[in-house]
């Protein structure tokens, strides 16, 4: 609460000097200057021109990584397959204490990694006889059988560090049609058709790249590119841009929390594993503090205690002997 004297001062009409001020004129000049600066900056610096990452470039550049990621997808062991809401119900998702934020809003954007990333794309193609037969076997089998094949193959491939040649030939019978399906998907990706098929699994006008981002994000190729461009969260990536372009410097505080304990402790710590949710809450509270600053005792008195405004209007305070 303000003291009675300050309340009295605040309720009185302004008795000091006034001068004319044309805010429309000033706004127009500011808009014009910023527009000219923007045009000049775009003429001189252009915009980031990073080469697009595609499934074709992934499958051609890092076929083993693509193959193993596809095996994770069909087995449901990928990161996106176990993410939880809003994509699936495989887990409770990130939490703040007892509050599971994403789960509260439910599965609003369903993604089935087996069908969306493997089976449906393969079904749109004219495949080789081997892949067609494998797909037919998969489609007529029950869920338990499908999961058994896919999990066994995923485990075997992981043990062999992604190298199919190291998987004992005698074990192939345990994997059913899965190796042929993954091989078909790799061929499809290398030809470039997987990019188009994944993009077309939606509306007529397709601007939703969620599925592509999830699939690509499950592999190492996408992550390696992000690391090389300093775009990972643990290297202030939120603030950065590709090349030498400036990034979102105003997100420094948001990005800052990811660099310090307990939020930088990865998945080993409850705070690290749920850093996104905790940091969102912290930033929400800080933003609310900024919005409601005039109502927070102590904070709202800072301009009086640290009178920076007197520096800006120093001439006025000098003339008025204030």
């Amino acid at each position, binding site marked *: 609460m303000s003291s009675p004297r300050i309340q009295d001062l605040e309720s009185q009409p302004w008795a000091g000097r006034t001068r004319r001020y044309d805010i429309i004129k000033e706004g127009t000049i500011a808009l014009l200057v910023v527009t000219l600066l923007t045009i000049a900056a775009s003429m*001189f*610096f252009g915009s980031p021109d990073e080469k697009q990452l595609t499934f074709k470039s992934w499958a051609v550049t890092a076929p083993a990584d693509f193959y193993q990621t596809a095996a994770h997808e069909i087995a449901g062991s990928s990161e996106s397959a176990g993410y939880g809401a809003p994509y699936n119900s495989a887990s409770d998702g990130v939490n703040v204490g007892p509050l599971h934020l994403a789960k509260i809003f439910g599965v609003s954007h369903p993604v089935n990694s087996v069908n969306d990333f493997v089976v449906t794309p393969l079904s749109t193609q004219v495949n080789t006889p081997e892949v067609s037969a494998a797909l037919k076997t998969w489609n007529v089998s029950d869920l338990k059988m499908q999961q058994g094949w896919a999990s066994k193959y995923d485990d075997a491939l992981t043990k062999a560090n992604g190298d199919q040649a190291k998987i004992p030939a005698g074990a192939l019978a345990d994997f059913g049609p899965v190796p042929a399906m993954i091989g078909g998907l790799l061929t499809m990706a290398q030809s470039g058709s997987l990019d188009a098929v994944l993009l077309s699994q939606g509306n007529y006008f397709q601007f939703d790249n969620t599925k592509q981002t999830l699939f690509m994000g499950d592999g190492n190729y996408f992550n390696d590119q992000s690391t090389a461009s300093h775009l990972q969260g643990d290297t202030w990536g939120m603030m950065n841009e590709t090349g*030498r372009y400036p*990034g979102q410097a105003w997100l420094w505080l948001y990005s800052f929390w990811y660099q310090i304990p307990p939020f930088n402790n990865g998945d080993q710590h409850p705070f690290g594993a749920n850093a996104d949710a905790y940091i969102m809450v912290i930033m929400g509270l800080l933003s609310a503090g900024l919005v409601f600053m005039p109502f927070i005792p102590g904070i709202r008195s800072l301009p009086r205690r640290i009178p920076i405004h007197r520096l800006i209007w120093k*001439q*006025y305070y000098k003339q008025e002997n204030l």
Partner: protein
Amino acid sequence: MGIFGHFMNFKAVYLHWGWLQISVTNLLIILSMVAIFLLALTLPFPQDKENQK
């Protein structure tokens, strides 16, 4: 692409101090913002100069 577009798409230079990591470009932008703020604090208003006459 821009006149300096080719140069801007080169690999960026990053500075490290412990857990702090920042690109030279971001550092320049932040220093420019601080400099503009300090100028706004210290430079007199054009109107003030007229009043002084």
